[in-house]
């Protein structure tokens, strides 16, 4: 390959690119799509589509329980899912009851509703209610399932929940059409065990690491839909045609991932060029090959 021969010396200087150029590339690949989204297409997974179709088929003014039970460490992944689902639900004028199984839950609920309520003409009490932290995850969910009116009595500001217009017609958990749990842990499984059998369909919004644990429930049909990680949020925005936090993020993800792969290729091209020029194997420190490989006579130099 003559062209490679010619380019060899140029490739060699990619062996030790100053890290700061890499930082700059990552920074730009995150920043630029925020100004000008590229809108790279993504395919929508089956599990996201199922969630969308379920929400889309809800009647106007349906009763929905929202449960933000994720840890703050995964809000970067889960909040975009919550916003995408909320926009869709609010466009269908769904009545929302927020149930909070974590200390931070009511904060996330308040923040999300404050940012969207004007756009959709929502009003506290009439269209949605936020209840305070309910400790004890598994037992809390069991109590909601058996007697929701006894388990939740007052809202975050101490007013009686069931006098509010949004939920005044509720007599038991079965009156709700849908429950959406945003989780990083076991809460969704408890909901599936306790609440789903009472005729409430359950959708999960999960962080990337939680997805494998929930897959079996999707296969068995207990879980009616699943959004996984930032990707799931982007898919939902795509399918519901409301580009938001996640879809903008997906362009940044695509670009930054591509930038990293490009740098890996450059580094290897440099290696290859140097190797063929010197006509021998590069014997620099090899993390992959020599690390901790403890057998006798294992050669290897280190830098």
């Amino acid at each position, binding site marked *: 390959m003559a062209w490679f021969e010619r380019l060899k010396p140029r490739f060699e200087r990619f062996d030790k690119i100053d890290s*700061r150029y890499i*930082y700059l590339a*990552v*920074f730009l690949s*995150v*920043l630029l799509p*925020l*100004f000008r989204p590229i809108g790279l297409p993504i395919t929508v997974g089956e599990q996201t589509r199922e969630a969308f179709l379920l929400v889309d088929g809800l009647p106007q003014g349906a009763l929905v329980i929202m449960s933000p039970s994720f840890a703050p460490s995964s809000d*970067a*992944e889960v909040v975009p899912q919550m916003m995408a689902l909320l926009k869709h639900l609010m466009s269908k004028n769904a009545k929302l009851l927020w149930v909070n199984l974590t200390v931070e839950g009511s904060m996330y609920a308040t923040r999300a509703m404050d940012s969207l309520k004007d756009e959709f003409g929502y009003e506290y009490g009439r269209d949605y209610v936020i209840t305070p932290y309910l400790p004890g995850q598994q037992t809390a969910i069991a109590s909601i399932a058996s007697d929701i009116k006894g388990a939740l009595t007052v809202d975050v500001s101490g007013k009686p929940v069931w006098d509010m217009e949004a939920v005044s017609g509720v007599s038991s958990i079965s009156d709700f059409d849908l429950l959406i749990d945003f989780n990083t842990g076991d809460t969704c499984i408890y909901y599936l065990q306790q609440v789903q059998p009472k005729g409430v369909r359950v959708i999960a919004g999960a962080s*990337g690491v939680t997805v494998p644990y929930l897959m079996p429930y999707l296969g068995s049909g207990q879980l009616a839909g699943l959004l996984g*990680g*930032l*990707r799931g949020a982007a898919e939902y925005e795509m399918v519901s045609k409301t580009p938001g936090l996640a879809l903008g*993020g997906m362009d*940044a*993800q695509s670009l*930054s*991932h591509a930038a*990293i792969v490009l740098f890996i290729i450059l580094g290897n091209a440099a290696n290859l060029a140097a190797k063929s020029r010197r006509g021998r194997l590069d014997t620099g420190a090899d993390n*992959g090959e020599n690390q901790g*490989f403890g*057998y*006798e006579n294992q050669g290897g130099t280190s830098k």
Partner: protein
Amino acid sequence: MSRDPGVWVAALLTLAVWSYLIKQNLVFQVVEHVFIGISAAHAMTMAYFTIRAKGVQPLLAGDVSLLFPLIGGVLLYSRFLPKTTWLSRIPLGFTMGTAAAVVIRGSVDASFVKQIQATMLPLTSLDNVLMVVGTIATVTYFLFNLKSRSGVGGYLARFGRYMMMAAFGAAYGNTVMMRMSLLIPRVRFVFGDWLGLVK
């Protein structure tokens, strides 16, 4: 541009941290020392309230058993006097003993027995075979008595290394997305919430 002083503080601090990427500099070092200072103070504040709520108040309410940890806690400070240094090893030993027991409790079941159980898969698909052989091979790599590189053990151990490298590579690639999703909100905060350039 934002008029919220909180946003200004947070944004300037964000820039200070980013400046470290270019070069170690005085501004970042100042931020570093303030950060350590307030986080140490925060930890001490929380510790103060913990000792008061879980130690002193129940003790005054009659739970005499709490004298043990409270005296033990004070003994930790005996290390500052040369003659009594050994006394501080009593509470340290207690902490280490209970921590070690918790370690054993957590490891033997969830990380050993249950992992073995989860690997007992029917050898009916290629994936299952790979899972079983791969796990066995990786465990073989950790046999410290296995000195030879040849033989079945040696080959298995080598295959185990390959499995681990595949696992590391996959996990590395998978984490890139999560790390980027941490950076995106920060960039959005600076260029959106603070500068108002992005919506």
